[in-house]
């Protein structure tokens, strides 16, 4: 009995020592962290916590909370975990600080690729990329002797074959939930058709040929989706895959690992990861590269900023990546791309553009999300929908002040 207790005490001691060892300094300044809640952030913040005095809050409403929380004086969080699009409001409000001097002090392990520069100053640090790319059922495609689709026309042909063979009634999955998700898919396809959203002076140019082609292609794909596709987001598509209901989808790389999770998935080892299909033959992959990372609040003391950044460097250290290599497509030194990174790397390698996070784009994304559904539910024609999107954007842009 005594021996057992001693043993467990030693184990506990050992555990805390090794956890302490993850951080190479003892932090004395209280730091509050807010970040999105998904596995990669759990890994990073767990490493940050080992420095001591770090209080972590992970949730999915970070986008709504951060602008107000960082505008407070002093800011409610020193450290804000964010993504490419959620940095824009913070930059607009001027509530995050340039990091150049802190990088000089603590950023020896950072790679040039991780530094998010706005007008010469580093305003945020990226730690991982996220991209939607093609996942498909290797076994289904092989059974029907279908090749890996490289563009959406080929994918449509494959889908028709799968449906005709009676393997699945709705072989396609899509993150087409009305709102942000549907808009993101539109943006991906639109760039695939070489569309551009704005002319000089932020005038919307969405009502063109590329817009019509995008809508037509998305509608063609939706014919192979479960009819309730307008309520389907990434979780839905992931589950459809895991339950063997769909054979292909353009899905976030962060979802790749879940396909082989034997606890949830019935298709372990059967999903292949490939680069996002091009919108037309010979085009670039129709997807956009997003990054996740963090920024440091401006309305805090320099000592706090110093401590927050120092702790953050422990969070995104090469040791953390070594221990959590499969949790994300890390941009951090020491990352070894595994099988789940193949599709993302191939997409980026073939020239998928970064998501162009600007104020105008934020307004356009919102206008797209609010107005696309009417086209897919058949209430409006493509021309009407694009006209409404341009009008909604114009109203919002004038209200915001970026359009004269």
């Amino acid at each position, binding site marked *: 009995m005594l021996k057992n207790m001693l043993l467990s005490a030693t184990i506990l001691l050992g555990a805390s020592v090794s956890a302490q060892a993850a951080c190479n300094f003892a932090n004395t300044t209280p730091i509050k962290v807010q970040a999105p809640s998904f596995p990669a952030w759990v890994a990073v913040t767990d490493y940050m916590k080992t420095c001591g005095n770090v209080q972590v809050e992970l949730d999915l409403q970070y986008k709504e909370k951060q602008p107000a929380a960082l505008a407070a004086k002093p800011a409610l969080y020193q450290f804000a975990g964010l993504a490419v699009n959620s940095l824009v409001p913070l930059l607009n409000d001027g509530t995050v600080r340039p990091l150049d001097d802190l990088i000089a002090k603590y950023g020896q392990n950072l790679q040039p690729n991780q530094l998010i520069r706005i007008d010469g100053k580093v305003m945020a640090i990226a730690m991982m990329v996220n991209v939607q790319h093609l996942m498909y059922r290797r076994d289904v495609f092989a059974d029907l002797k279908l090749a890996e689709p490289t563009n959406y026309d080929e994918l449509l042909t494959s889908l028709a074959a799968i449906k005709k063979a009676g393997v699945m009634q709705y072989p396609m999955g899509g993150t087409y939930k009305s709102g942000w998700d549907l808009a993101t898919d539109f943006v991906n396809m639109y760039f695939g058709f070489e569309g551009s959203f704005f002319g000089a002076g932020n005038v919307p140019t969405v009502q063109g040929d590329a817009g019509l082609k995008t809508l037509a292609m998305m509608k063609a794909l939706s014919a192979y989706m479960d009819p309730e596709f307008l309520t389907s987001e990434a979780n839905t598509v992931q589950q459809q895959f895991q339950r063997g209901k769909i054979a292909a989808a353009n899905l976030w790389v962060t979802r790749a690992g879940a396909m082989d999770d034997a606890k949830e998935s019935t298709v372990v080892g059967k999903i292949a990861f490939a680069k996002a299909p091009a919108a037309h033959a010979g085009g670039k992959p129709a997807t956009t590269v997003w990054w996740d990372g963090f920024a440091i609040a401006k309305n805090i003391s320099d000592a706090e900023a110093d401590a927050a950044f120092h702790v953050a460097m422990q969070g995104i250290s090469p040791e953390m990546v070594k221990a959590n290599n499969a949790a994300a497509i890390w941009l951090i030194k020491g990352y070894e791309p595994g099988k789940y990174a193949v599709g993302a790397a191939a997409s980026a390698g073939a020239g998928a553009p970064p998501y162009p996070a600007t104020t105008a*784009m934020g307004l356009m994304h919102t206008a797209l999300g609010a107005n696309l559904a009417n086209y897919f539910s058949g209430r409006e024609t493509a021309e009407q929908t694009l006209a409404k999107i341009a009008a909604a954007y114009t109203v919002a842009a004038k209200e915001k002040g970026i359009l004269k």
Partner: protein
Amino acid sequence: MRGRVFLGFIAPSLVLMIIFIALPLVSVAWQSFHATQGVFEDVLVESCTPGFLTQTCVKEMQSRPVMQAGVAVTSTRFVGWDNYRQLLQPDAVADAFSPTGHGMSAVLNIDFYNALRFTLSFTLITLPFIVGLGLLLALAVDDIAHGLRGPVIFVTLLPYIITPVIGALAIRWLFVGDGVLTDAIRWITGHDVSMFAQGWTIELMMLFYRIWHIAPFAFVVFYAGLQTVNKDTIEASVIDGATRMERLRYVIIPHLMPLIVFVTMIHLMDSYRVFDEVVGFAAHAYRISLQWLTYSFLTPDQTGNRAVARASASAMLTMLGIVVLLLVPLRRTWRDHRGKS
């Protein structure tokens, strides 16, 4: 000094009403006629974002907010009816009804009218069902043996106790793509049903849900009313040979009339602000309500911006709608009130 005593008693409540209702209302009205804009400048910005393994840098014109002492500069100005015009889009409506227009269907594609149409039909269709069903339940429970009433009342009240969003979600999960009930229907009929693939089925479910949820409220009110029906009058009418229907029509309903008006008014106000159903059923791709429209304006967009001005205008219009809707029952009670005094 009765007037003074009266004033003394209502003063605290009056003060609170002014602070928490009147002043916010004035502020919303004020905001609905103003617009706040950021001040932006166009600058050539070089920004770098990570690709995979290499960095992508672009130089482009971007609109950047003008900063003063670290705070973005904004300007607020009076815009008259602009916010209302953006909601109501009178030009688009005129277009729709011009000879070349698409008529009503084009009007209903404008968010505000789409929301108004749904909100109104939602309110007016559920109303008779809730009053009728509540009355039926009350009469039925009033008829059963005393010993059973407690448990029956409890069970009948259950739908009303459930948190609206939870109830809506529960029904949604029953009927969604591969929910328990849809699978059962598929198994029985051999047909694949998709309740969430078109607007009218979702609308039907929302109507059903609201009736299921609120009818118990009407039931409790009517049941309480039934306990105060004069037993002598009932017995007298029985002796006079009145049938059950006649008793209901000439004795019970007139007795319950004030309660029916009460339930009607509460329900009109409540369901004109329908919101939970739209969220719970994730219906916004197909059906939106006026309250949801206001909410969507207030939700920060991808730039962190809230369309406060348009939200205020939409809130004002919603309020106006409730007042108009309540005029009918209110006029009736007013007449009754005057008739009695």
